[in-house]
């Protein structure tokens, strides 16, 4: 009996041992699966800006762009007007009788329009248009940025930036030249939370200043740009149109080059980001290129992407 019991015990132990082994195996498989999945998640396909769509904006030679709740506004420099288009590029309406409108801006659905031809900044809303009062005179205003009460104006022929914190009292910084803080025909400007970014067009670089007009840094001077005409600064990236070289360069805020966009781009003048998409205007052939943040295709198309990077 004892012997039988012993056999029973042995049999029971064997069963338990086998169960433990199976449990161990299952446990190991589970751990392996979790680790494998985690590994896959870390090796997510690299993403970059990729051309998603090109829209023909017939008869419009775009210099600047701004977004309001109505849609995307284009300043048509050659035809002295603003053109409102929808997301498909269909023209909705125009604001006419301007004199060479350049890099426009918007804030709370109000459009700010620097007019190169008459040295005025027009403020356009649903009630009509009025001239932005300035004590100083401009000579060919090429760009404007509005950030809450703050405004900055790129004063092309005076080689300087006018900036106001309170919307009334302006400071002026910069002079003609090539040194740090100098400008050679600035064409675009953007105010962010802590800085003022300037497309220093014919010095072929971006310059960054604090809100007292003090020089902070230069970006892109080593990229052999040829007329850095249009600028856009997002939370993580800085975009600049390189007009003569038919490309847009993408930097991080420290000036590290992250990507060169060239597909579909020809004589670009302006770039703007909205809803995760980049809109890049071609001046001469009246095209609007839309880039999306997508998985970088494998193969030769990836040549213009230098580094993978995070994007919010």
């Amino acid at each position: 009996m004892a012997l039988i019991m012993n056999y029973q015990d042995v049999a029971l132990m064997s069963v338990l041992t086998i169960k433990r082994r199976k449990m161990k195996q299952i446990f190991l498989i589970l751990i392996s699966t979790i680790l494998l999945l985690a590994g896959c998640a870390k090796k997510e396909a690299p993403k970059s800006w990729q051309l998603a769509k090109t829209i023909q904006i017939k008869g419009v030679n775009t210099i600047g762009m701004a977004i309001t709740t109505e849609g995307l506004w284009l300043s048509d420099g050659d035809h002295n007007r603003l053109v409102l288009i929808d997301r498909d590029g269909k023209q909705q309406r125009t604001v006419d009788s301007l004199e060479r409108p350049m890099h426009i801006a918007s804030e709370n659905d109000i459009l700010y329009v620097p007019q190169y031809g008459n040295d005025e900044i027009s403020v356009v809303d649903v009630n009509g248009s009025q001239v932005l009062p300035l004590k100083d005179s401009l000579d060919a205003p090429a760009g404007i940025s509005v950030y809450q009460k703050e405004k900055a104006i790129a004063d092309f022929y005076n080689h300087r930036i006018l900036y106001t914190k309170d919307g009334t009292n302006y400071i002026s910084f910069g002079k003609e030249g090539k040194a740090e803080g100098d400008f050679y025909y600035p064409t675009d400007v953007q105010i962010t939370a802590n800085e003022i970014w300037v497309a220093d067009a014919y010095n072929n670089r971006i310059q960054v200043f604090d809100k007292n007009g003090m020089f902070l840094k230069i970006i892109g001077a080593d990229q052999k740009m040829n007329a850095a005409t249009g600028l856009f600064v997002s939370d993580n990236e800085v975009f600049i149109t390189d007009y003569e070289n038919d490309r847009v360069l993408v930097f991080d805020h420290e000036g590290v080059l992250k990507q060169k966009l060239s597909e579909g781009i020809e004589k670009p003048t302006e770039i703007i980001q909205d809803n995760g998409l980049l809109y890049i205007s071609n001046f001469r052939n009246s095209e609007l290129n839309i880039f999306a943040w997508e998985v970088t295709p494998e193969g030769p198309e990836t040549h213009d992407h230098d580094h993978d990077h995070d994007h919010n």
Partner: protein
Amino acid sequence: MKKAMLLIITILLVVPTLQAQKTYDHFEVQVDGLGCPFCAYGLEKKFKEFKGIKKVAIDIETGDFSFNYPTEKALTLEAVKQQVVKAGYTPNEGKVTRYDGTVELLEPIKEAMATDAKLTVASTFVAGNCGMCEARIVKAATDIVGVANASWNKDTKILEVNYNKKTTNMDVVEKAVAKAGHDTKHHKASDGTYNELPGCCAYERVDY
């Protein structure tokens, strides 16, 4: 009442006729330094100071600038040249066709080459970037007595010249092009001239 009506009708008929009689001279200038719409609009802006200017046309790629101006104001090519300089650009060639058909040139016509001259074709490397560079390089080459024509390709950077071997040679051409601000295969432009080039023409310097 009838008299008044007749007077109004007469005025309405006469005024358009008088306006139609207003005549214009046609100016054409090849301008160095236009690279982008900002430059082109800038040139236009400075010429707005010429009251009565009409039909302003600017080709950004080639630098060809033209406009009409009232004949009665007898605008000179010299005044046009000075205004282009004031706008920050360099006038190359210029021409005005007066209303009566007479033509005046900004620069004297180059001495015509004998039609039976035997031409030699040669090419060389010239550094440059854009359409403005092209205009400047070709002008520097074709201004030389003995050069029949020249062309420069901004992609290949090759200048091709047809010239009379008895009158000039490629070394003279290269020197003239370098003097205009462009490094060539054998001659370097001075730093001063290079720095004076418009921003869009700031090509990568040649290492010798």
